[in-house]
């Protein structure tokens, strides 16, 4: 039986889910009956999924199955596409984020995101990291200095860039750029970090570095990562959700998914029989 059916949730006073009663683990995100359409295109179908605190949750599945769409729904970036329609509910820390009254800017300061292609701003390394704190009103240079250092250290890139903080971020290699983007995301001290195939544009060595970093980050942050590298999911995640055609086929402990999947399609996918 898949995890999504096993969950037994404690609710907060407003009716939002907070705790998995079975495991006593805190729930960060709970998705209930989520459906999403791009125009007429039904991209997500009845998604039910609980994401736990300080864990790495991997989302795998073949191309076009809705992985990116789902993860972008979690910080409402998906709504930048004008044709999107959503039904169902996602609660973050017990509050429904699909509610109109929930400010996206607020949500996104708590939920950081790292993209498939590194996308540093065309500014200096320092300004890239300081961007987030600055827009939130932190102007004090000393404090900014500290934030920048801490975030770059947190993203395991400090030693490589500490002498060139004022150089343009585009002078960095792809792997460094990606870690810089992670640092940029850490600078606003998020609660959750969403990662959409963060290593797919990187070479194996850089990929390894980022994977190690994710392992470190998990101590402080909850991480949701999309990947279509099965090995990667197996290496770094605690839980894995397998998406297919917009549906969650199976969601469980990563060990279970990779060693003993309960659905035939999951097995087929993992053993490389399609996708």
């Amino acid at each position, binding site marked *: 039986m898949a995890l999504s059916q096993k969950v037994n949730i404690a609710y907060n006073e407003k009716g939002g889910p907070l705790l998995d009663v079975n495991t006593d683990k805190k729930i960060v995100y709970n998705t209930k009956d989520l459906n999403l359409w791009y125009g007429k295109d039904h991209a997500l179908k009845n998604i039910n999924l609980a994401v736990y605190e300080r864990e790495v949750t991997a989302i795998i599945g073949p191309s076009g199955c809705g992985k990116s769409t789902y993860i972008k729904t979690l*910080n409402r*970036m998906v709504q*930048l596409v*004008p044709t999107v329609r959503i039904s169902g509910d996602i609660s973050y820390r017990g509050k429904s984020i699909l509610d109109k009254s929930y400010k996206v*800017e*607020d*949500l*996104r*300061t708590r939920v*950081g*995101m790292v*993209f498939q*292609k590194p*996308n*540093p*701003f*065309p*500014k200096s390394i320092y300004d890239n990291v300081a*961007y*987030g704190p*600055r*827009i*939130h009103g932190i102007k004090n240079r000393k404090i900014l200095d500290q934030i920048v250092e801490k975030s770059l250290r947190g993203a395991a890139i400090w030693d490589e860039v500490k002498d060139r903080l004022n150089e343009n971020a*585009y002078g960095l290699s792809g792997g460094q750029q990606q870690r810089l*983007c992670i640092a*940029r*995301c850490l600078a*606003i001290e998020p609660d959750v970090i969403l990662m959409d195939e963060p290593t797919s544009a990187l070479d194996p060595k850089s990929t390894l570095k980022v994977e190690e970093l994710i392992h470190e980050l998990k101590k402080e942050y909850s991480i949701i990562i999309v990947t279509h590298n099965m090995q990667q999911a197996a290496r770094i995640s605690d839980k894995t959700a397998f998406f297919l055609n917009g549906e969650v086929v199976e969601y469980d402990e990563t060990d279970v998914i990779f060693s003993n999947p309960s659905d035939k399609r999951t097995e087929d996918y993992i053993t490389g029989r399609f996708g």
Partner: protein
Amino acid sequence: MEANSAIKEGNAVNVREMIEEKKSKRSMTNVIELIMPKVLLAIATISILTTIGILFTLLSETIEFFSRVPFLDFFTGTVLRPLSQNPEFGVLPLLTGTIISSVIAMFVAVPIGLMTAIYLSEYASDKIRRLLKPMLEILAGIPTIVYGFFAFTFVTPILRELIPGLQATNILSPGIVMGIMIIPMVASLSEDAMSSVPNSMREGALALGSTKLEVTKKVIIPAAMSGIVASFVLGISRAIGETMIVTIASGSSKNFTFDITQSMQTMTAYIVEVSSGDAPSGSTIYYSLYAVAMTLFVFTFLMNLLARYISRKFREEY
């Protein structure tokens, strides 16, 4: 041994044979093939000849002009009295007129054009953008003579209500109207620059909790800066070269002044005045036409070079 097999025997038509046969007669095709590049090259050089023609006509008469009027007198003279018994040919009144009218135009066109670009590129939905952009383009397609009429018969009277002491012909009104005319140019070039900033940049900033304004201010505008600045420079160049609006709405006083309520003449309007008076060739005033035109040409040429330099040199790499 004959390599080409005759496998298509028994066919009603033997294309291969026909082709072979026609080939011998197709010298015409070969001739065309040979001369076409040369013909086209000749055509392509017409644009170069045009430039040479412009330079040559302007230069030769300008040189004659400077043999009559010292170079320094022309560029430092504050009095322009070309038709007078004791003519004086100081170009400064025209230069100030030109620069002041262009500056006024840019005061209108830069903020409004840029904000329009921001709205279209960052805020407007696809549908609205597709509706508004062509409408703005209409503004760019209106003949300048119509703007001149508009400035003279509509904007000036309104401004005179608001600003006491504004002359019936003044540089302010045509400046403003020129600005309006340039808005679409600034808006559409800036919008192009801003839309070509990759979406990943926008998403990156939004994902950090930025508002759209912050994304625009801190990420999009800096990234699109070169294109935006280039659009300003091109706008100035356009304003400098604009003729009919100033001619109609600013009169032909050759005041050397910085008072925008006064009538001033621009280089372009001077050319119109002198040429509609049809200066007899050979007179100094006739040559002054070319000297002023040369100055104008150099001005706009430098502006265009600058615009191109900016957009190439400072193109962000993302």
